[in-house]
Each structure stands twice: as structure tokens, then as C-alpha cells.
């Protein structure tokens, strides 16, 4: 039989005795570990999947588009330094008509090389086969699109290729590293039913779009260690004569950008949330252990008198902490593993990976364990040191009553003089240990702050949805034209069934230059006093459109380093490709993208193409929607139709599925945090003052009055913590918004009063739960045994 060392036995008994507090601390550690494991594991799943997928299917490193590049240029590109493989191809957008689906659908058409399999951006053929080069109607469609429409091999649908309706047949279903996140142009998120990818033979596309002997898009892989900036510059120079609109690296490729952005957000969560939990856990450990050492000081003295070393005593109390932390880590691992798997499952539907392997490696576990144990040890160090350094004789002597002091006639004394004795007891306790009071309140604040910062996502999203879809985008549908057309088409559209009102816009692809900086962006011409798109800034204020000059988003102004009054060069990348010099008339903050606007008349005038449009917005009568959609699908001049209602529904559905569950989890963790802090505070108070409270009972105070003295302290701490936490939550929200900020997307911080209210209610709920649990102990307080002993 192995004898358990009595000191080890003592640690286990201590933990059993303090199980409530030990559990609370362990749960906070578990929350921190859980969030860390979840985000790291999900991050790892996406990162390693993307890496493996990109590598195996040769996802391009560099992309470039132009109007029409002669075939021969592909060889020049291949000769550029660092270039490994070049895939010259055709990429065009088209509208698609799928029987049974009323609304118009947009698709991107990508050419497949005639005689060889693509070397770059290889397809993952999920079903079927590669189209026969001799059959013009055979195509491959992207898997989520096929699934959304329940399309099978052999099914047919039609597409408008350059204005001509073509009947197409599905021979294959595939995925591509280029379309992991299939988001259509101008959309806020992927809509598998309304945006798809179609691969077809290059001869078919070349014929349809008049690109024989040419291509309009190039995808390139490079050798490791390639000098990207110089490659991009050379590529730009090479494609310039062919209407090149600027080469870009993988980082700026839209699908990959979203994947990387998701990884960055997970990293940001991993670096913000867990530290909050672990710091609070360290603080609580510190208090609990300090109390334990204090209670056991005579035992420590005795053990030392027996000859146990300082180190043994320090290690004894450190073990206590390690066991609690280890318990938290284990629970956190399981929790984090499950949450991570759930999150990864969400990513699996969001991102089209051929497979998503969820197998967090050992580092995730060891890292989270290491962090928590270090945090716990930091919490333990002071108390363990104290235990080690207690001189035996001192430790055996009973303590004199804790010192209280006041300056009679001082401000504090005068303030307290107005209170009754029980209330005075509460405040003197709080003031005696100002640091502990402060830190406990901060612990409560941390919980409120995490709650506010988590719950406010709802506000941010609903504000954005309302602002974007209700206040800004007031059209029901928007229609893109294949080519610019006279304004008269707006009136033609107005005559279609169900159309109530239309407005004409113009969008031109441009490269905007200022000094040495430049940037590609669509310059959007909008009508003055437009009713269907109302420009609003990040604060929800309407932005007036200047009659002349550019109205530039603040984000774009920052990229270019321009200020109002500066004159920029606008290189138009279509049509005659003129270069305009235009002053920046005004800037405004936007939440999405880096848009640049101009009065449509001023834009048309500058382009010397008066009264031209390529984008229309319309309000429609829902009752005639079917008839209208049927007409729109058959109009060859239209390259795409977007429905606002569909976008809103999709947004709400996607957000509802994921965001709210995530918010619920973080809120749960935050409630746990509040509970842990408050419960521990009450238990420590009860332990420190059990004797005092028993004395009060003996003196004739009722259980209620005694409870007031015990819980009053926690109540004051909580009440201090609430407003500080609300403020902290706002700051945390701002901080996270900055952390998540990208060029494409900025999150507004728009915390509704009800969010603060809900956070406060949840924390008060944890406080009441803690109080209820501790009250049971208060009722059971044994008056006689407490009074018979010293401490």
C-alpha cells in the first residue's frame, strides 16, 4: 500500500472543504482555456486546411485582369523573374436563369484550358467530369451553387453570354481554391443561390466574348522567396497597354482575404478574451490562498517547528493552486475542443473547403495549460511566500484584531458618522483593504465589460443593417448593365411591369493616384438628391454630394494620403481610358469599403460621355415581382440583378445562426466570471467575519440583519463595478472594433442602453445566485462553536 503523505492529504481536504470557491476559480480558468482552445483550434483548422488546400491545388499567388491580352503576352509573363506557372484565362460575369428559381442569378464564368488540366487554381472535381472541349454546352458548376439549387449532373440551365442566351448542361460539380468564399461583387456575404461559379471551355468563352487569341485574366504561381512588389510592378507595366487594371497578390484576392480575415479575428479573440479570465483567476487565487494561509498560520508554525522547510510549506500551498488550475484546464480543454469543433463546423458551411479537418494539435492544449498555470502561480506566489516566511513562533501566536484607524473629525469619519453601525461595518471593511476592494470591483467590472462587449455585437449589427438596408440602400433591386448605355434605358426599365421608380448611376473602374500612392477603386457617379441611395456616414448622418469634385471615403483618403482640396489623378480603366484630374471636394467616414463618389453629371461630363449610365436602382411593386424578374432575365443588356430583400434575409439568417450563439457563449462565460468574483468575495468575507457575524447574532441581530452586513459589502463592490464595467465594456468594444477593422469593413460601436441594462441584470443575477448559495452557510453558522474558538 502506498501511503499518501499527510500534507498531500491536507491539500486534498482543503480543496474539498473550499470546493465552492475552488470550483468558481476553476470555472473561470476553464472559460479562459475554453475560449483560447476554441479560437486557436478553429484558427488552426482553417489555417492548416487553407494551406494544404492552396498548396495541393496550386492556388495562385498573383492575379491580374485586363481588357484583352494577346495570347503571346502569356509567354512574356512566364519569363518574368520568380514566376513559376502562368494560367491565362477568361473571366466574365453573366446572368443565369435556373428553371424554378424566379429571381435572376449572377455567375462568374471562368475558362478551362482546352487541352490540359489547369496548372493554377486546380479544380477539385466532386462529381462528374471535365467538359468535352468539343461540346460547347458542357460546364462545371461550383458545389454550393449546385446544392442550393439541387442541380445534378445532366441538369440544364441557361445563361446570357454577352447578350446571347445559351443552354448549358452540367457535367461536373467542383470546388476551387480560388472560390473558398464565394461572394458576388457588391454583396455583403456569400449567397449560394444567387451567385455561382461556372467553368466552361475556353473556346466557348472566347467565341462568346470576342476574345479569340486573347485572354483577360491571369493567375500566377511564384517560386518561394519571390519579390512580390517588384513582380506586381512589372506585371502592371506589361499589361498596361492591354487595359490592365492592376495586378494584386493573394492577400487582396477576395476569397482568400475573407479566409485570412476570419483567422485574424480568431487570433484577436484569442488574445483579448482569455487574458481577462486568467487575470481574474489569478487575483481570486491570490485572495483565497492568502486567506487559507492566514487561517492556517498556527498549523504552518507547528509544521515548521516540527522541521518542515520553508520550501516545503511554499510548495504545499502552491500544490493547492495547481490542482485547482489543473481542474480548470481539463474542463477548459473539453469545452474548448467542443466549441472549437462547433465553430469549425460553421466555417465548414461558410467556406467551401473540400474537407475541413478539425484536429487541434498538442500545442493548443499545452499553450492554454501553460498560460493558465502561470496565471495561477502568479496568483499563488505572494501567499506561498508568506507561508514560507512566517516565523514559527509568530505563526503560533493568535492574531490581534485587524487594525482599523480613522482620523476623528476627518472627512471619512464625518461621512461614516451619519451611518448606523451595521452600515459603518460594511464601509470600514471596504476601506480597510482598499486594494482588494478595488480589485474585486474591477473583477465585477471585467465581467460587465465582457458582457457589454459581447452583447453589443447585436447592436452593431442591427444598427448596420438598419442604416445600410433601410436608410442608405432604399431601392428594392439594383441592376447592372453589361455596358454603359444612354440614360434613356432608365426610363425603359421604368416601363417594365412592377417598376415604380428608377434612378441612374454610373460606376467606372479607375485607378486613383496621388503623388506616389495609387489605388484601384470604382468611381461611382450618383444623382444629386438621389432617393434610392442616400449617402450616410459612419455616424448615420446624411452626407451631401458636392456638385463638382470627388466625395471620398475617409479610408480611401487615408490610403492615398489626401486631404480635402488636394487634386488627384483618376485613371479611367475602361472605354477610352482617359486620365482625369479631379479635386477632392469632401471626405466622410464609411463603415464598408473605400468608396469614392462623384456627381453623375460631373462624371459623365469629365468622361465626355454625357447622360450615360451602367447601374440602375429601382423600387418595385412586390405583386408584380415574378413578371419583372422573368423580363429582367431575358434582357441581354443586364449583367446582374441584386435584390435587397434577399440580401437582408440572408444577412439575418447567417448572423442569427452564428453570431447569436457566439454571443450567448461569451455572455455565459462573463456571467461565470461575475459569479466567481462575487461568490469568492462573499465566501472570503464569511470566513474572515464569521466570528463577527456570529457575535452579532448573539447580540440579538436577526439573520436578515446579519446578512445585510455580509452581503452589503458585496453589494457595494458590485454597485461600484457596474458603472465602471459599462465604461470598460464600451472601451473594450472600441478596442475590439479597432482590432477587427479592415479596409473592407469597419464595425460601428453603437451600444444600446438596453445592452448595458442586460449586462447589469445578468451580473446582478450572478450576485444574487452567489448570495443565495452563501446565505445557506450563513443560516447554518454555528454560533457556539464559532465563539468558543479564537479564529
Amino acid at each position, binding site marked *: 500500500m502506498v501511503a499518501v503523505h499527510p500534507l498531500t492529504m491536507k491539500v486534498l481536504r482543503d480543496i474539498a472543504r473550499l470546493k465552492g470557491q475552488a470550483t468558481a476559480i476553476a470555472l473561470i480558468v476553464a472559460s479562459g482555456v475554453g475560449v483560447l482552445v476554441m479560437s486557436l483550434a478553429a484558427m488552426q483548422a482553417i489555417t492548416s486546411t487553407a494551406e494544404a488546400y492552396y498548396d495541393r491545388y496550386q492556388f495562385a499567388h498573383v492575379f491580374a485582369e485586363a481588357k484583352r491580352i494577346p495570347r503571346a503576352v502569356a509567354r512574356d509573363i512566364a519569363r518574368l523573374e520568380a514566376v513559376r506557372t502562368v494560367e491565362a484565362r477568361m473571366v466574365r460575369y453573366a446572368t443565369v436563369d435556373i428553371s424554378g428559381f424566379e429571381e435572376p442569378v449572377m455567375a462568374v464564368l471562368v475558362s478551362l484550358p482546352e487541352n490540359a488540366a489547369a496548372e493554377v487554381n486546380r479544380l477539385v472535381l466532386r462529381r462528374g467530369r471535365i467538359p468535352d472541349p468539343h461540346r460547347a454546352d458542357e460546364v462545371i458548376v461550383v458545389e454550393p451553387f449546385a446544392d442550393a439549387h439541387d442541380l445534378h449532373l445532366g441538369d440544364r440551365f441557361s445563361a446570357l453570354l454577352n447578350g446571347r442566351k445559351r443552354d448549358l448542361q452540367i457535367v461536373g460539380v467542383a470546388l476551387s481554391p480560388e472560390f473558398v468564399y464565394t461572394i458576388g461583387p457588391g454583396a455583403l456575404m456569400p449567397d449560394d443561390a444567387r451567385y455561382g461559379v461556372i467553368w466552361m471551355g475556353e473556346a466557348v468563352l472566347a467565341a462568346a466574348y470576342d476574345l479569340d487569341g486573347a485572354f483577360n485574366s491571369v493567375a500566377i504561381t511564384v517560386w518561394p522567396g519571390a519579390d512580390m512588389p517588384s513582380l506586381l510592378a512589372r506585371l502592371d507595366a506589361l499589361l498596361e497597354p492591354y487595359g490592365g487594371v492592376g495586378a494584386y497578390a493573394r492577400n487582396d484576392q477576395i476569397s482568400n482575404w475573407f479566409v485570412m480575415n476570419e483567422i485574424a479575428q480568431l487570433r484577436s479573440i484569442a488574445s483579448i478574451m482569455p487574458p481577462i479570465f486568467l487575470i481574474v483567476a489569478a487575483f481570486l487565487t491570490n485572495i483565497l490562498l492568502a486567506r487559507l494561509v492566514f487561517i492556517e498560520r498556527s498549523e504552518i508554525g507547528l509544521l515548521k517547528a516540527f522541521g518542515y522547510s520553508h520550501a516545503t510549506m511554499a510548495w504545499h500551498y502552491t500544490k493547492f493552486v495547481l490542482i485547482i488550475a489543473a481542474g480548470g484546464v481539463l474542463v477548459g480543454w473539453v469545452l474548448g475542443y467542443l466549441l472549437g469543433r462547433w465553430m469549425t463546423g460553421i466555417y465548414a458551411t461558410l467556406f467551401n473547403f473540400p474537407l475541413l479537418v478539425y484536429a487541434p494539435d498538442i500545442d493548443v492544449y499545452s499553450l492554454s495549460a501553460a498560460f493558465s498555470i502561470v496565471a495561477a502561480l502568479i496568483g499563488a506566489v505572494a501567499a506561498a511566500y508568506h507561508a514560507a516566511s512566517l516565523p514559527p513562533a509568530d505563526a503560533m501566536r493568535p492574531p*490581534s*484584531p*485587524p*487594525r*482599523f*484607524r480613522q482620523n*476623528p473629525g476627518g472627512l471619512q469619519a464625518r461621512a461614516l458618522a451619519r451611518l*448606523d*453601525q*451595521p452600515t*459603518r*461595518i460594511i464601509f*470600514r*471593511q471596504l476601506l*480597510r483593504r482598499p486594494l482588494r476592494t478595488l480589485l474585486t470591483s474591477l473583477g465585477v467590472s471585467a465581467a460587465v465589460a465582457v458582457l457589454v462587449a459581447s452583447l453589443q455585437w447585436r447592436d452593431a449589427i442591427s444598427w448596420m443593417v438598419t442604416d445600410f438596408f433601410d436608410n442608405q440602400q432604399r431601392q428594392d433591386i439594383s441592376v447592372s448593365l453589361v455596358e454603359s448605355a444612354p440614360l434613356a434605358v432608365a426610363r425603359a426599365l421604368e416601363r417594365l411591369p412592377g417598376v415604380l421608380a428608377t434612378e441612374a448611376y454610373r460606376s467606372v473602374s479607375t485607378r486613383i493616384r496621388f503623388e506616389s500612392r495609387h489605388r484601384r477603386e470604382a468611381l461611382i457617379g450618383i444623382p444629386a438628391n438621389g432617393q434610392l441611395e442616400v449617402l450616410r456616414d459612419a455616424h448615420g448622418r446624411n452626407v451631401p454630394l458636392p456638385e463638382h469634385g470627388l466625395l471620398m471615403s475617409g479610408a480611401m483618403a487615408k490610403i492615398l494620403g489626401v486631404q480635402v482640396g488636394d487634386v488627384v489623378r483618376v485613371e479611367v480603366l475602361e472605354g477610352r481610358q482617359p486620365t482625369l484630374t479631379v479635386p477632392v471636394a469632401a471626405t466622410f467616414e464609411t463603415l464598408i469599403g473605400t468608396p469614392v463618389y462623384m456627381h453623375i453629371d460631373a462624371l459623365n461630363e469629365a468622361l465626355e460621355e454625357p447622360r450615360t449610365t451602367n447601374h440602375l436602382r429601382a423600387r418595385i411593386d412586390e405583386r408584380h415581382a415574378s413578371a419583372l424578374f422573368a423580363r429582367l432575365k431575358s434582357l441581354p443588356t443586364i449583367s446582374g440583378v441584386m435584390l435587397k430583400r434577399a440580401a437582408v434575409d440572408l444577412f439575418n439568417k447567417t448572423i442569427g445562426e452564428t453570431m447569436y450563439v457566439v454571443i450567448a457563449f461569451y455572455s455565459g462565460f462573463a456571467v461565470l466570471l461575475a459569479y466567481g468574483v462575487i461568490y469568492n468575495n462573499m465566501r472570503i468575507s464569511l470566513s474572515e467575519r464569521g*466570528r*463577527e457575524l*456570529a*457575535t*452579532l*447574532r*448573539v*447580540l*440579538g*441581530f*436577526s*439573520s436578515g*440583519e446579519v446578512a445585510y452586513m455580509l452581503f452589503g459589502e458585496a453589494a457595494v463592490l458590485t454597485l461600484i463595478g457596474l458603472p465602471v464595467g459599462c465604461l470598460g465594456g464600451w472601451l473594450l468594444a472600441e478596442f475590439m472594433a479597432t482590432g477587427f477593422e479592415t479596409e473592407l469593413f469597419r464595425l460601428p460601436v453603437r451600444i444600446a442602453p438596453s445592452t448595458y441594462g442586460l449586462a447589469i441584470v445578468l451580473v446582478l443575477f450572478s450576485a444574487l445566485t452567489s448570495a443565495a448559495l452563501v446565505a445557506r452557510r450563513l443560516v447554518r453558522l454555528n*454560533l*457556539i462553536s464559532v*465563539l*468558543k*474558538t*479564537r479564529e
Partner: protein
Amino acid sequence: MGAQEAASAVLVARNLVKVYGSGELEIRALDGVDLTLYESELIVLVGASGSGKSTLLNILGGLDAPTSGEVLFRGQPLDLRNDRTITEYRRRHVGFVFQFYNLIASLTAEENVALVTEIADAPIAPREALAMVGLGDRLQAFPAELSGGEQQRVAIARAIAKQPQLLLCDEPTGALDSKTGVLVLSALERVNRELGTTTALITHNRATAGMADRVCRFSDGRIIETTVNTHRTPAEQLEW
């Protein structure tokens, strides 16, 4: 028991039994105790450690309930199991002094006393109570700033400030040296004399018995002997 005596009885305990544990481990801490405390008397309880003195005092003061038997306060039976009535009883009628002073560390001497006077019906002023125990000049001191004897005297002042009918003291001098102990006993004696508070005092010190009106000797949970002193020795003259 004469009619007059019965009328002046503050507290009557009848056939009190207190059993801890059960079966083999059963301990009869009180084994049929009858005791009457009369108006204004000072009674001292002596006996070996473990003989049941504290158990009795705790039951009389409403801190504990007996296994059987009853307690009458001014002729009315006390429901010792009802928290409400018992809290009320302690609050209005009973003052306690323990071996450990049990002062509230966060309150000054005066505030410790005020703690009780705030919830009492007809209290004496905290200053007055402290003056009575010889601490009129230490009102603003916190417990940590007082000696053991001073702390115990604050505890006495706190116990008597509400003018209780009963003052129950469990070894109040147990943690004190003899000189300080005498000061504490003098304070108790003075309270008993000036306020007429019925006082029951547990002590280990035989000499203390001299200051009592009556002395009850305990053994094995019973009162085995009661002595009536015809003459009370003033506390200052007690020989330790």
C-alpha cells in the same frame, strides 16, 4: 418555593437534558438540570471542564436548544427552537460576555456599544456604559488599540448597555491575568449592583465564587451542590 421567590424569578430551567451524538458515542452534556435565577442575584457556576456549564449557559441565553426540558422567562415558556422568538429574546433581554471578547474589529469601543443600543428598547448611553466599566476615556479606540482586559470590559459594556434582564458570562477572565481579571470582575459586580442585572458567571477560579450570592457546582451534567453566600466578598478583595 415561596410565592415571593417565584414572583422574583427571572429565569427558570426545568429538567434540562442535552445529549450530543447517539448510541455508543452519546454524551449527556446536561443530565436533568433544574435552576432558577432570581431578580438581581449574581450566581457563579463552577465545575470541572466538560461538566456542562457552558451548555447550560448557552441554552439559558437562547444560543442552543435542549434535547428535553423547558426554560421559562418571567413565567413564560421560551420556544428555543424558533429563530424569530429566540432572536427577539436575545435582543431584548440577554447580555453575553465570552472568554474571547468578540468585539467587532471595524468599530470603535463606543461604536461597539452603540451597535447594541441602536437596536435596544431602553438603552443607556454608550458613553455611560463604558464609563461604568472604567473606559470613559477610551471611546474612540478600535479593538486593536485596546489591551485584553480593556477589550473584555468593552464587551461587558456592550452586553449591559441595553439594560438586559440577564447577563451571562462564560469564563470572562479566562484569557486574562489576575490583575486584569479583577478589574473585569469589579466591572461585572458594579453592573450587578447598580443596574440590578441578574448575572450568571462561569469561572474556573475558585476565589471568584466569593463574590456570588449563590454558587452552583457542576459535575457530569448535573448540579451537585448549591451554596448560598451570606456575605459577598467585593471583587477587589478576591485572592487569586
